[in-house]
């Protein structure tokens, strides 16, 4: 079967079977930033945004994503890396990096809705992500810094 998905602002017509998850279909289409982890909704590696909200792509039949605006880490948002990615790099929050695409997208959903979050809100938004390299401290710092960067960028527009 063919399904038509809205991915990062583009319409893509993709071949799939009903058995496949959104994770499977996105990776087959070359969106390798969507990582395959636990495949049971625990680790957050496969998180994508659907209509701006973070979802585990391993728990979704691909046809159920039709009509939703899907955002992956490949979304070219402007001519330089997104403030969240710059902040994660600057804070040294990335070691192996496997968890980062999902974390960055959950952070984007948080910061788009809550431009000045407190630490509890940041940790709440990161709940569904496991990182086995770090202790999460630098990711939390990075998201605080990203919030500042995004507010500065918004005030210059």
């Amino acid at each position, binding site marked *: 079967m063919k399904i038509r998905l809205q991915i990062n602002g583009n319409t893509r017509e993709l071949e799939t079977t*009903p058995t496949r998850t959104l994770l499977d279909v996105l990776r087959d289409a070359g969106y390798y930033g969507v990582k395959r982890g636990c*495949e049971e909704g625990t680790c*957050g590696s496969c998180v994508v945004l659907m209509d701006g909200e*973070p979802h585990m792509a391993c*728990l979704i*039949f691909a*046809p159920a994503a039709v009509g939703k605006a899907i955002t992956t880490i490949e979304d070219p948002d402007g001519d330089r890396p997104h403030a969240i990615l710059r902040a994660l790099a600057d804070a040294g929050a990335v070691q192996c990096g496997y968890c980062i695409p999902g974390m960055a997208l959950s952070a984007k959903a948080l910061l788009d809705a809550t431009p000045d979050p407190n630490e509890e809100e940041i940790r709440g938004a990161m*709940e569904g992500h496991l990182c086995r390299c770090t202790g999460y401290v630098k990711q939390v710092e990075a998201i605080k810094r990203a919030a500042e960067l995004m507010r500065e960028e918004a005030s210059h527009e």
Partner: protein
Amino acid sequence: MKTFTAPERLDEALTLLGEASPPTVLAGGTDLWPQWTATKTKPTHVLSLHRLEELRGITRAGDILRLGACVTHSELTRSPLVQAACPALAAAAATVGATQIQNRGTLGGNLANGSPAADLPPPLFTANAEVELHSRRGARRVPITRLYRGYRDLERERDELLVAVHIPALPSGALERFWKVGTRRAQAISKVVGACRLALDEKGTISHAALAFGSVGPVTMALDELASWLVGKEPTPEVGEKAAQLASDAVQPMDDIRSTADYRRHVVGRIVKAWIVELATLNR
């Protein structure tokens, strides 16, 4: 799996469920996918509910809140109507999995999956909610306290679909609380989960009591005998301590991978005591 069907009309879904071998009903998939992954099996035919508008929405008519079965945990958490009419349910939904699961998982799925550790049944038990089941044969309401006949055995015929939940709103002045104990704050399946709805009369004695716990037996348990015992008493520390003992004795927990029976009995008692102590503060 061979077929994935996502009808837009309820009658289409009910027709499919009325067939000789009905499809597997899929709401958010947050419970079903891990089960399929763990068992390396998938159903041959899935009926996905995600396009059924009749299963969405949160509305209030008078003192009754109506929740569509496909309302997500995030929607329950954020809804001012739910926060006012059943605050323990809003609190429970905020503890399911993590944000990313709450955006996907649904009220109806949490109930129909039938896990004795599910987080949403206890506040629905104490609110005396009813579930609305539909089939081609018609519609009926079942009190949530009668929904679970045994371990993962629901009072739902295989051609029936859980369409909505109806909740009597919390009366003003009453206290409703939710408490969950898990291994960590996120992505934890409950060791003990409970809710209460309690009220005092003008003399400061308990005029209404309802308490329910999950993960302490084969099904969610309403502590009706304890509730009857509490009515007419003052919420003193002594009553709280006796209530804790009665609650610990009433539940039927077991040792499993998440916790032990002894720990669960102890925690149930401490939670009940804390609620009674808090109730007493309403009086001042």
